């Protein structure tokens, strides 16, 4: 295919990594796999920036008095942590890296439908990121990642406008990724790749893309209105001159609640792939798992009001939002039960990706169930703005999404780089991440239940012990995140060649060489079997 010719000097066969050389070939690439690598590097940088703010916060909270930072600085720390982690790590994390890399291969296509749009989305992400880095450099912003009005529009004396600008631009990067995925899934599937044969990872990316294209424009316009109000002070969100600050919250959460599902659905897709591969069984109830992804996306648009139980929303609206929020638990639970049923009587292998999958299932269950506590209006009044909320969404986003992300990176690393990483180190660091995570965030459930409010740099002495546990856990968790960075990078030099399919997994991406060629397939494959037809493989292995 294409113009790539085997270079006699190189040992490894021509693939997407060595097909072209030079910085320019990377910055102007339209290859979905190279763009995935660009995203991988950039979101890792932003993860470290966001993590740095988290470290500073946990340092401050190691002792009850506010001794390290004053309250203004602390406000900026949690705001910048939230903005960077939500908009620049979690939202693009799996879709823009693993999704970009794998989605075309999984449906049997040579690239996404619009390769140049794909590259444009990375540049928009970088431009948005530059705005946010500039915000940090100028002195940060202190509104919380939610930019609640009228504080953000009228009273805050920090760099609100550049931060909003960064999120606005990065939002379009997310929209373009979603658009590309939707068109690719609809129009680029290989012959025989019916909707019922799509890998569940693709289904979850599709559901995510729906949210990206329908929700992100609304937050863009909301933040634009907020910026307008801040710049010109016309009164759209200022109650003293007729504006409605609650309207901002409605519009903000109309996107940002579905966005929470942008930050978990792709993770669920990864877990579906991992569980079925390492159980050597077809996923239990494929149709239900696929439908549950779309169900979560749809219901996700109807529950935003549960963020506003105590902010002056009508009681009846709260009751409806509460019931609808409970409904989200149904498709989520379907997934958890079906993964568990997939493992039942499977030939389970305990490779690193599967360890992360175990971690995800346990932690997401806790995160999801505590979400039901918060959806209960009466309990929410007690728990609003406490550490219980912090612990809840970190169990979903860090315990869920980051676990799935790491699991996915380990699972497809051999495909992306052609090298195996060090399995003992990987297992060790998976354990470290699990222990560190729970030590960090489980005490926060108790703190919140006992009434410790979020977003303060000082706290009452009786909360000291649990906070010390949390800070210790955070340092362990930090090591757990640094280790993969080291051994994965080391594997590029020293790792054993992986071969096309080191896990014996099903799926079109494993039929290509590792790393794949620029256009993935010599010939567009024809699909003749269901997704995850593991029964046949297991038999062969037994016989062989």
């Amino acid at each position, binding site marked *: 295919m294409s113009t790539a010719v085997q270079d006699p000097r190189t040992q490894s066969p021509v693939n997407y990594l060595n097909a072209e050389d030079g910085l320019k070939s990377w910055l102007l690439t339209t290859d979905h796999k190279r763009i995935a690598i660009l995203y991988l590097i950039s979101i890792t940088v932003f993860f470290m920036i966001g993590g740095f703010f988290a470290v500073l916060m946990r340092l401050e909270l190691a002792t009850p008095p506010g001794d390290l930072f004053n309250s203004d600085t602390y406000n900026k720390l949690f705001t910048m942590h939230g903005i960077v982690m939500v908009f620049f790590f979690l939202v693009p994390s799996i879709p823009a890296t693993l999704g970009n890399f794998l989605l075309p291969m999984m449906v049997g296509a040579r690239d996404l439908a619009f390769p140049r*749009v794909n590259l444009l989305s990375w540049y928009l992400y970088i431009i948005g990121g530059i705005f946010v880095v500039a915000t940090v450099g100028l002195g940060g912003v202190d509104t919380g990642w939610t930019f609640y009005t009228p504080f953000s529009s009228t009273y805050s004396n920090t760099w609100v406008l550049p931060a909003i600008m960064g999120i606005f631009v990065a939002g379009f990067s997310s929209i373009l990724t979603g658009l*590309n995925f939707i068109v690719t899934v609809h*129009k680029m599937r290989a012959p025989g790749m019916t909707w019922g044969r799509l890998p569940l990872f693709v289904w979850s990316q599709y559901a995510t893309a729906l949210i990206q294209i*329908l*929700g992100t*424009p609304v937050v863009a316009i909301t933040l634009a209105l907020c910026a307008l109000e801040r710049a010109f002070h016309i009164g*759209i969100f200022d109650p003293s*001159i*007729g504006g*409605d600050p609650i309207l901002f919250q409605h519009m903000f959460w109309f996107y940002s609640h579905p966005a929470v599902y942008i930050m978990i659905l792709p993770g669920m897709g990864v877990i579906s792939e991992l569980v079925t591969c390492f159980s050597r069984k077809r996923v239990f109830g494929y149709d239900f798992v696929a439908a549950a992804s779309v169900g979560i996306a749809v219901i996700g648009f109807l529950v935003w009001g549960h963020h506003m139980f105590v902010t002056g929303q009508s009681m009846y609206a709260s009751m409806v939002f509460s019931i609808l929020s409970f409904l989200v638990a149904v498709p989520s639970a379907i997934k958890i039960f079906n993964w568990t049923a997939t493992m039942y009587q499977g030939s389970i292998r305990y490779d690193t990706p599967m360890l992360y999958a175990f971690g995800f299932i346990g932690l997401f269950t806790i995160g999801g169930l505590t979400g039901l506590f918060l959806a209960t209006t009466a309990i929410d009044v007690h728990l609003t703005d406490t550490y219980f909320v912090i612990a809840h969404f970190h169990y979903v986003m860090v315990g869920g999404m980051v676990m799935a992300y790491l699991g996915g990176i380990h699972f497809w690393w051999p495909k992306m780089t052609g090298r195996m990483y060090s399995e003992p180190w990987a297992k060790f660091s998976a354990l470290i991440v699990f222990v560190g995570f729970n030590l960090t965030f489980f005490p926060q459930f108790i703190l919140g239940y006992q009434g410790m409010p979020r977003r303060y740099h000082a706290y009452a002495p009786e909360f000291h012990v649990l906070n010390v546990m949390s800070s210790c856990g955070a340092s362990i968790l930090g090591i757990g995140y640094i280790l993969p960075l080291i051994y994965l990078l080391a594997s590029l030099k020293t790792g054993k060649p992986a071969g096309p399919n080191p896990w014996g997994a099903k799926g079109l991406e494993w039929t290509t060489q590792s790393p794949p060629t620029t256009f993935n397939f010599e010939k567009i494959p024809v699909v003749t079997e269901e997704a995850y037809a593991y029964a046949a493989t297991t038999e062969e292995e037994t016989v062989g």
Partner: protein
Amino acid sequence: MADQAADLNPGTLVEHEHSPFLRHHFEDMGQQFESSTLGMWVFLLTEIMFFGGMFGAYTVYRSMYPDAFASTSRHMIPWLGATNTAVLICSSLTMALAVRSAHLGSRKLVRWMLVLTMIFGLAFIGVKFTEYYLHWKDHLVPWLNFQYPEHPEFFYNAQILFCFYFFMTGFHALHMFVGLGLLSWLLIKNETTLFGPQYYSPVEITGLYWHFVDIVWIFLFPLLYLIGAHG
């Protein structure tokens, strides 16, 4: 957007013996056409949500302050708005004819239909900015010179309406400019590329976009110009 349309440029490498317009990652022209069209529809969905956020916020304030909003219709110039509505509907007709001509492969017709569409588009923008100028002379621009002497009790609420007026029509005008840019690009492309039944998707998807921008105006006109005009 433009980039998306640009994706349909003749690819640099043509592996198969297919049409020179087929990009390497598509199997055939049909798949390429369907993909680009669906891509534009999905993009328009995001645009609907984008404008939908503004329409939603507008609706909330209009139901909160119905009298103040109604009082603003005296300052709008409905006949200019109506003229602009007619201009845009005509431009949609010529745009549709441009798509048809591209499908039929008539370079000359495509050229003239695109030029007519652009003239209508420019006329719309001319009228729109005339209105902006008149509003500025009437001291109705929030933040710059807003005054509302006849109904001082509505000062702040009417100011919100005018804020939405400028914000929504401004975003709409921005979309018109993007549309005009796309039309100019098509005009140039039409001279070097012979569109025909096999390949006319750039005209098709630009047409979709242009019609969408027209439809937004069809909603903006009554919501902004005709509130309380019956009273």
